[in-house]
């Protein structure tokens, strides 16, 4: 295999196809539409199912139906569309069937804009649909990683019979990078025992998130948790850079982690002992590693393209073991490496206020920097 120049949206679509994607249902939304377009040609030519649905609501429920037959099923969208899909996402989680969903995040809230953003972290990791349900969230930071994680996502989803989200942003969906696509995998022909494919030679199967008996549904909830405990043990992923001798740590995921890496390299050139932790699995979060590093470093800088969402998790995990600073650009603004470098320099040269929340410190600084005045 050789590397080719490939666009993010097409890369994950083709990677899914090669992983054995049998059914795709989607709806056009910028900045992920190229995935839908790509699969609208590729799926039929391989004799696989493709429907451009009437809405994301239609798409996710088609996904739900196809996944009930035990085939590899995926949809992709961006923030507003993912919000509309939350009903089906909760049903899929409650029905314990494997599904892969790609969210190419854009600026929010509301219609927002089509610029890259990371404002859907909380929705993906903690929130979304109604009820208690864990889900796996993977956040690649380059096209090769996007390909590799999408390719593997179906195995993971099937292993734990759960939802796997691939969380990227508009810049990754739109950018082209040299990357290598994986080989084609055979489509599995044998349906899993739980699938609804017709009850030939057996009692009927039922796929259902509905249980009128509360005690029985509590058992379903606890079964989801037991599976999640296995996920937490087996599926933690992260990458770290220059952490061995680091006195300070930057934490960032996806594109903000990638931009932070440029800033960390520049800081290193200036003789600052700083490293980067880039969580890849946002759920399950690399908790142990983060806690271990928080005991080692003199301070942390959390960088995100939002108003501090992963920040909440970092604060709750590190429990004040080291001072934390935050830098974020919400609403579709992408931070420049120089901005992050300046934050690293601040972190290493000035004390971090101990009694003010990192988000409040950031807010005051950014609002002043932008010259904004909001009425009381």
């Amino acid at each position, binding site marked *: 295999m050789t590397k080719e120049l490939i666009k993010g949206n097409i890369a994950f679509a083709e990677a899914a196809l090669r992983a054995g994607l049998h059914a795709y249902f989607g709806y056009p939304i910028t900045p992920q539409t190229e995935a839908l377009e790509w699969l609208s040609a590729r799926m039929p030519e391989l004799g696989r199912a493709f429907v451009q649905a*009437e809405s994301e609501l239609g798409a996710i429920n*088609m996904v*739900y*139906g196809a996944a*009930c037959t035990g*085939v590899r099923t995926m949809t992709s969208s961006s923030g507003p569309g993912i919000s509309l899909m939350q009903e089906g996402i909760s049903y899929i989680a409650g029905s314990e069937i494997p599904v892969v969903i790609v969210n190419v995040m854009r600026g929010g809230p509301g219609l927002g804009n089509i610029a890259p953003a990371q404002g859907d972290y909380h929705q993906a990791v903690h929130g979304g649909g109604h009820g208690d349900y864990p889900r796996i969230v993977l956040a690649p930071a380059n096209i090769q990683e996007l390909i590799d994680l999408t390719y593997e996502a179906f195995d993971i989803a099937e292993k734990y019979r759960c939802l796997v989200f691939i969380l990227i942003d508009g810049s990754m969906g739109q950018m082209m990078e040299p990357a290598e696509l994986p080989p084609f995998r055979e489509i599995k022909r044998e349906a899993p025992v739980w699938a609804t494919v017709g009850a030939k030679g057996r009692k*009927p199967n*039922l796929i*259902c998130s509905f249980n009128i008996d509360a005690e029985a549904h509590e058992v379903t909830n606890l079964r989801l948790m037991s599976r999640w405990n296995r996920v937490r043990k087996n599926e933690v992923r992260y990458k770290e850079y220059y952490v061995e001798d680091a006195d300070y740590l930057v934490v960032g995921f996806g594109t903000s982690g990638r931009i932070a890496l440029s800033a960390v390299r520049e800081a290193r050139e200036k003789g600052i002992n700083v490293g980067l932790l880039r969580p890849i699995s946002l759920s399950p979060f690399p908790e142990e590693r983060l806690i271990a590093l928080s005991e080692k470093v003199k301070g942390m800088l959390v960088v995100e393209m939002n108003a501090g969402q992963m920040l909440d998790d970092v604060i709750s995990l590190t429990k004040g073991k080291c001072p934390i600073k935050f830098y974020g650009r919400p609403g579709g603004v992408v931070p420049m490496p120089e901005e992050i470098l300046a934050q690293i320099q601040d972190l290493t040269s000035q004390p971090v206020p101990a009694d003010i929340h990192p988000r409040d410190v950031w807010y005051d600084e950014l609002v002043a920097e932008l010259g904004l005045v909001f009425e009381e």
Partner: protein
Amino acid sequence: MTTQNVQYEETAIFTRPSSLTPAVTTYCPGCTHGVAHRLVAEVIDELGLRDTTIGVAPVGCAVFAFRFFDVDFVEAAHGRAPAMATGIKRSLPDRTVFTYQGDGDLVSIGMGEITHAAARGENITVIFINNANYGMTGGQMAPTTLPGQKTTSSPTGRDVELAGFPVQMAELIATLQGASYVVRRSLHTARHIRQAKKAILTAFQVQQAGLGFSMVELLSTCPTNWHMTPPDAMQWVEDNMIPAYPLGDYKVIDAVAKFNG
């Protein structure tokens, strides 16, 4: 007194279709859901489809439909059954896929999904129960509630100035080019039940022949929420529902007409 052991030869003339489970239904006395279930199960038996059929249950009175049919089932979110059926059918085109939906499910919250499934000509069968109210939640106004009809959310009768007019779903779906077989039948008399059975059979045959989207709308009774005895409810269908929802064939494409023929 002596007892005599007499052997009678028994001939079953009326049995439960094998695609219907022996479970006691969750439907109210006098409700026609049970009749509709039986007709669908008879058709599945007669066409030999028990092993290859996947049903999609709705949210509403038929939310437990999976308990009553002896075939694979999935449970959809409210209104989304046609989208789920689309996903199943596209993944397994050689299986028979049907949805069973009420009027709140299909006409109100699921208007988008049913309309687009029909427009795409999805090769699925839809059994649509129209009883002019939301039964499961206790008799609220549905899009199919008649003008002036009292429900728990139209206590003085449906006021069309405030709540608009009933939706005639069979007529609406029949306007779509993708729909192949769209009819309305009723379940209020034995004669109408026989006609309904014939239509359900045709609808499943349409799917088997790969001819596309089929929907049978069935006018049904809801004695509990209509506050009527079952016979009065049957009469109410005749007197009030049929004038608003005329029975008939609204779309029968040539291929179906020939095949039905």
